[in-house]
């Protein structure tokens, strides 16, 4: 907060007018295909600029236009309006078709993140093949999150900004139906009563096993 105040004070002296800053953000965002954070933009703008404020104006300006300013995680990007996709058939990139396993794994990671491989396997009831995870990692739709503070300190997976960008999501909180799933208790990791068969045990990669202990500590 105080830093903000400092910034403003400084900007009184040497930052360009906000309309000019808006132009700058517009140019910078137009020039890049990837989303940029406020910090990225300010690093390129003259000292004392307030990209966040400029973006408020810019977003309004592009409301309802053929191109929109969208928020992607903590970054920003210009994207064509989704209703005009039909005009762009030529630009459509054939994305590799994801297998059913990959789609499900992706959804589980998105809705349950951070989630361990063992947890994904428990939900799907089968072991997760290495290839599936590799493919999602390669597409940069998922990445490793922090390790779980459970025995074995298993790695977790989370979705990336590229994922959010691809599906036009501002944040993982905007996933379709997230609230309903949570309300229905379907995102809880309910511990299995003893004597339930453990899923995905045959997987050599699933050494982060012994999920009984973990699941209790699983929070979303």
């Amino acid at each position, binding site marked *: 907060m105080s830093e903000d105040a400092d910034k403003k004070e400084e900007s009184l002296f040497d930052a360009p007018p906000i309309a000019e800053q808006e132009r700058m953000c517009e140019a910078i965002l*137009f*020039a*890049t*295909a*990837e989303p940029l954070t406020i910090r990225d933009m300010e690093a*390129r703008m003259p000292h004392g600029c307030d990209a966040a404020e400029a973006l408020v104006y810019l977003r309004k300006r592009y409301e309802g236009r053929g191109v929109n300013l969208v928020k992607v995680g903590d970054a920003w*990007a*210009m*994207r*064509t*309006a*989704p209703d*005009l*996709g039909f005009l*762009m058939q030529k*630009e*459509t*990139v054939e*994305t590799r078709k*994801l297998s*059913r*396993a990959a*789609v*499900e794994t*992706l*959804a*589980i990671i*998105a*809705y349950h993140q951070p989630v361990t491989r063992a947890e994904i396997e*428990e*939900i*799907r*009831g*089968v072991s997760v093949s290495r290839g599936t995870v590799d493919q999602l990692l390669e597409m940069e739709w998922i990445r490793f999150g922090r390790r779980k503070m459970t025995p074995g300190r298993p790695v977790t997976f989370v979705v990336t900004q590229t994922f959010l*960008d*691809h*599906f*036009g*999501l501002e944040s993982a909180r905007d*996933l*379709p*139906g997230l609230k309903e*799933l949570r309300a*229905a208790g*379907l995102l809880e990791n*309910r511990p*299995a*009563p*003893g*004597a*339930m*068969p453990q*899923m995905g*045990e*045959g997987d050599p990669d699933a050494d982060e096993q012994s999920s009984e202990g973990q699941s209790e500590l699983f929070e979303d």
Partner: protein
Amino acid sequence: MADDDFDDEGRANVTPVADRMAAEALIVDIDGFEGPLDVLLMLGRTQKVDLLKISVLDLARQYLAFVDRAKQLRIELAADYLVMAAWLAFLKSRLLLPPDPTEDGPSGEELAAHLAFQLERLQAMREHAAKLMARDQLGRDFFARGIPEDITRVKRVTYTATLLDLMQGYARIRTKDEFRPYAMDRDAIFTMEQALERMRGLIGFAGTWTDISTYLPDGFTTDPARRRSATASTFAASLELAKEGKIEIRQSDTFAPIEVRRKD
């Protein structure tokens, strides 16, 4: 034999015809299933009820019929399908028999409820995976900038110098300046040849020990550069004459005056 193992009620082959039909249908597509939970989900769907209210008992029966049928058709089922079958058989007995008070662990109902929860959760994730994939996607429904402009990296070179550089630079020029005429200005040099000639002419008169500095020519005694040049050449000439056996040289001590005398 094997059939009996899977039928707790001891009545072999009494699985309803519908179950057998379902099992047969599943087997045809066994490769298309993603594990036992997937099969259970598929079977559960035939009950057409909320998954939480599903009859786990019916489900278990159907699943066992599926595994049973696979065995009859000599289809190799992966281990986890068999593990699930064994567990469902166990669950079935738990659900059908009155609870044994001496036995610890979860009740049949608890296990059944959890299985129902797992099925519902998997079903929910599938539905939401489909919703996710149905969203507008980048590069399909909306698009990024087609002509991204690369950020050009501009290397800006700044030059710097220290005060020392500056002073040394100046000193270099100024000292060079002092000697600059030197290259052209030969009169600041007294060569060895000149010194030798001068010494040869004068040495005949040196019967006694004489300081060689007295042999420096006129005009080469005050200016430091000229004196230095003359001193050096006169000394070198003295050595040359000594070598020729014309003179003797002596120096009483380090840094003491160097003296020469005619050698007879």
